[in-house]
């Protein structure tokens, strides 16, 4: 069943109601409510169907509206929310409205309202207008049925509206009737002096000012982004004509709103002062709508919106595409990376692209020397004069360092007579066989590194090897010459100790000559059908060079001695056993350090020559007697560490060897990788003098070449 709420009243605060109800506790609840409703809704007529009811509805924090009404409420309607139709025509739901006696009931209530003012607005702070409405009192809708009265001060009389606009239900107050900074109250009166007055209808004119919207809104392009995707505009406008800004009467603030054409959300920009605003970041090819409204500074009421303007930027002609720029940048980055990679890996790349071509190089040989064409020196070096240090170590890899190498034949000699020195001398002679130099052939060129007091003599194998090498090559002649089978005999001669030195000397003298005749390089004159090679050594050239070199050796010895590095002890070593005695030694020991540098080899070669010359010089001089006073050719004995060890010419001159034929059979390979040519057979057993590493007897080769496996077998 339906009913109506017939009206609404308004109370300032809720406590009044509760006070009111409590005042009549003796009444029943319904009675109380009746009285309450009557008090609340005095001007309303009631339709009391069954029971009156009132629903306090909170519409705002400061005012409570009570919907007064009556009627029966069907039980089925309980629990539903109450919908109230307010005087303005909109429905307000009030689910939280407490019902006094009933639960919430859904019903549509139309609330009748009294005549009231809908709005009072001033545009220019000099005049204002008020609009009224008769509410639900339709009998007052005729023009003139309601009249507007106003007053400014409390005690002044009410004045009627100076200007009516009945068509609009508007009352216009012109500047003569407008007083600002003063509270103005307006009221409506009907003909029968029923006054509809509300305290809310008092105001100050400056507080109701809503300025007109700005005029002449326009925009100009400020700039476009580099890629032509966004642009900025400046929006300009003029203040409304009604607002007297030029006189300073009103100062306006504005609000610019803009949105994309298809968007529903406005972007708001507040403008405090000035009549322009920049909008940033608008998208190209999108349309924007802009409108502006204004208000008084420090006030909150805005005027209406201006007419919208539409901003759109067509395709910007100077727009650049991102793509080419990105491409260029990418290529540039790649190029830079490649260059960095190149420079960082320069060495490796060069190695990769231009692998080093192995050039023929022999250790100890200076390419300069080759260019200069010093053939004899080259031959000397190649024969192992300076190469001993580099070649020999290969033979010593597996063998332990042995300090002492004792020759068996030497032992009985050592036991007695000469004493330690002779033994030392013999050891000097016997030398370093143990270190693995069988090919040395027991030549006395091996130094005795076994001296107890001299540990440093032991030195490094390379040094020793160098010494050995030096000893074994008393002349620039190839080592191979030394390895001829005649050598063991030489050696034997030594242990014997008192071999005819002059003979040796004599032998030594021509020997180097003979040896000089053979060199490392041999010219191949013919190739045998069996595979042999016919050699024709070129000896003349070297013979001349060697003689020439003998001259100026002495002075060179001095300076070269400085370069050599060997223990002074060695020379001292060499000195002691050599110095005082034994004519057997016959050789001037000059310790010469091994110089791995090619230059050193060169100088060594020189030294060798000089040393040899020395030896040769002295030897004949000393060979006056049996005993050749060994002259210590230790030039730099105490000062310089290195000095020369000139192996006596004795070992090589020991035997006169038959001249080398044009071709010989290679029997074995020297420790210096020289080829040992075919020794004469009878000397074969003499090899036993070599204490520990006897030369392996070789089977004569039918052919003049050697295969690698055989090479390995003949390797000492």
């Amino acid at each position, binding site marked *: 069943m339906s009913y109506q709420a017939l009206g609404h009243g308004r109370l*300032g*605060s809720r406590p009044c109601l509760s006070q009111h109800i409590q005042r009549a506790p003796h009444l029943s609840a319904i009675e109380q409510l009746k009285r309450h409703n009557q008090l609340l809704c005095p001007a309303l007529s009631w339709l009391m169907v069954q029971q009156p009811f009132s629903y306090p509805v909170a519409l705002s*924090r*400061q*005012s409570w509206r009570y919907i007064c009404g009556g009627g029966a409420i069907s039980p089925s309607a309980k629990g539903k929310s109450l919908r109230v139709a307010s005087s303005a025509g909109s429905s307000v739901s009030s689910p939280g409205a407490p019902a006094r006696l009933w639960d919430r009931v859904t019903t549509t209530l139309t609330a009748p309202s009294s005549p009231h003012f809908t709005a009072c607005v001033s545009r*220019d*702070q*000099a005049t204002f207008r008020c609009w009224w409405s008769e509410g639900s009192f339709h009998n007052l809708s005729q023009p003139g049925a309601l009249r507007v009265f106003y007053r400014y*001060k*409390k005690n002044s009389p009410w004045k009627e509206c100076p200007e009516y606009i009945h068509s609009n239900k508007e009352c216009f107050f012109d*500047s003569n009737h*407008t*007083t*600002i*900074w*003063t*509270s103005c109250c307006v009221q409506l009166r009907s003909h029968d002096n029923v006054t509809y007055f509300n*305290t809310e209808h008092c105001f*100050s004119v*400056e507080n109701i000012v809503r300025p007109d919207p700005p005029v002449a809104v326009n925009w100009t392009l400020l700039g476009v982004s580099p890629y032509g995707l966004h642009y900025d505009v400046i929006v300009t406008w003029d203040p409304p004509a009604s607002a*007297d*800004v*030029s*006189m*300073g*009467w009103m*100062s306006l603030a504005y609000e610019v709103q803009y949105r994309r054409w298809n968007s529903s959300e406005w972007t708001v920009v507040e403008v405090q002062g000035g009549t322009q605003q920049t909008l940033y970041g608008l998208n190209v090819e999108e349309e924007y709508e802009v409108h502006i409204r204004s208000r008084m*500074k*420090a*006030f*909150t009421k805005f005027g209406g919106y201006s007419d919208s303007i539409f901003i759109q930027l067509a395709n910007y002609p100077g727009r650049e595409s991102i793509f080419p720029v990105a491409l260029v940048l990418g290529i540039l980055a790649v190029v830079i990376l490649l260059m960095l990679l190149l420079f960082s890996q320069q060495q490796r790349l060069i190695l990769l692209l231009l692998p080093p071509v192995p050039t023929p190089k022999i250790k100890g040989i200076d390419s300069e020397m080759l260019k200069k064409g010093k053939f004899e020196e080259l031959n000397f070096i190649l024969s192992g004069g300076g190469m001993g240090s580099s070649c020999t170590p290969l033979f010593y890899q597996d063998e332990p360092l042995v300090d002492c190498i004792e020759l068996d034949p030497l032992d009985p000699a050592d036991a007695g007579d000469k004493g330690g020195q002779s033994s030392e001398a013999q050891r000097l002679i016997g030398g370093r066989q143990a270190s693995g130099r069988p090919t040395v052939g027991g030549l006395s060129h091996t130094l005795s590194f076994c001296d107890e007091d001299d540990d440093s003599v032991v030195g490094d194998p390379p040094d020793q090897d160098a010494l050995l090498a030096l000893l074994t090559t008393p002349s620039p002649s190839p080592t191979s010459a030394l390895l001829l089978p005649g050598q063991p005999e030489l050696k034997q001669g030594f242990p014997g100790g008192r071999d005819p030195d002059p003979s040796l000397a004599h032998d030594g003298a021509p020997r180097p000559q003979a040896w000089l005749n053979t060199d490392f390089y041999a010219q191949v004159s013919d190739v045998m059908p069996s595979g042999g090679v016919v050699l024709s050594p070129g000896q003349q050239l070297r013979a001349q060079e060697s003689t020439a070199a003998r001259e100026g050796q002495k002075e060179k010895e001095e300076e070269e001695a400085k370069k050599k590095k060997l223990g002074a002890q060695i020379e001292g070593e060499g000195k002691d056993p050599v110095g005082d005695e034994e004519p057997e030694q016959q050789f001037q020991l000059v310790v010469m350090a091994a110089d791995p540098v090619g230059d050193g080899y060169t100088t060594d070669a020189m030294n060798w020559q000089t040393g040899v010359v020395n030896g040769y010089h002295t030897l004949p001089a000393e060979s006056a007697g049996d005993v050749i006073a060994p002259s210590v050719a230790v030039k730099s004995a105490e000062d310089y560490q290195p000095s020369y060890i000139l192996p006596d010419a004795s070992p090589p001159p020991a035997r006169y060897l038959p001249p080398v034929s044009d071709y010989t059979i290679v029997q074995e390979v020297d420790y210096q990788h020289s080829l040992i040519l075919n020794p004469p057979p009878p000397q074969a057993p003499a090899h036993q003098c070599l204490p520990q590493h006897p030369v392996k007897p070789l089977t004569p080769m039918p052919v003049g070449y050697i295969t690698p496996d055989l090479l390995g077998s003949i390797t000492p």
Partner: protein
Amino acid sequence: MADRRSQGTSVCLTVLSIMAACQAVPVSDLLDRASQRSDTLHSISTSLTHHMDSHLPSGGRLLMPRPNMCHTSSLQTPNDKEQTLSVSEAELMSLARSLLQAWVHPLLILSQESRSLPAAAQGLVSTRLLELLDHASSLQDGLDVLSSKMGPASQYLSYLPYHGGPNLGEDNPSKLVNFHFLLSCFRRDSHKIDSFLKVLRCRAAKSRPESC
């Protein structure tokens, strides 16, 4: 306040002496600065009023005295645009200065009483009141300087005493109501001062309408 006045006075004296020695700051510039200051004053008072509105108990507005009960309402000021535009500059300046002078004491009372407000309302009230005091005093000093340039008529000050006493009310609701009432009065008067100064500024800057 007193030392601020003395500071302000010393500042003014310094400024005056400098102005005497050098080229004086043009009046339009001074007016520009003064109107900016009054604009700030009015803005702060508006925000303070709105803040108090939200904390006012319901029905409090009904109990509020009417605006013509402000202690400055006895001052005869132009009430509409025509009157305002027709008043002389010196008189406008005098009115502005009188109004400003009348609010020095009440603002102090308000500032003191703001500490005893209920916590919900106190919020930023104290801060704003101190700002108000600061701006008011500096504006006062500036207007004193200006009036010295504008003739003797602008030097006249009307005496508008505040009769309220140090207490705004006995109980909290009445205190709150009186507080709100005083603030609304001050807001109205600050708007008056601002309007007068803006009219003066625009009159002095006839050659530069953009400054209006």
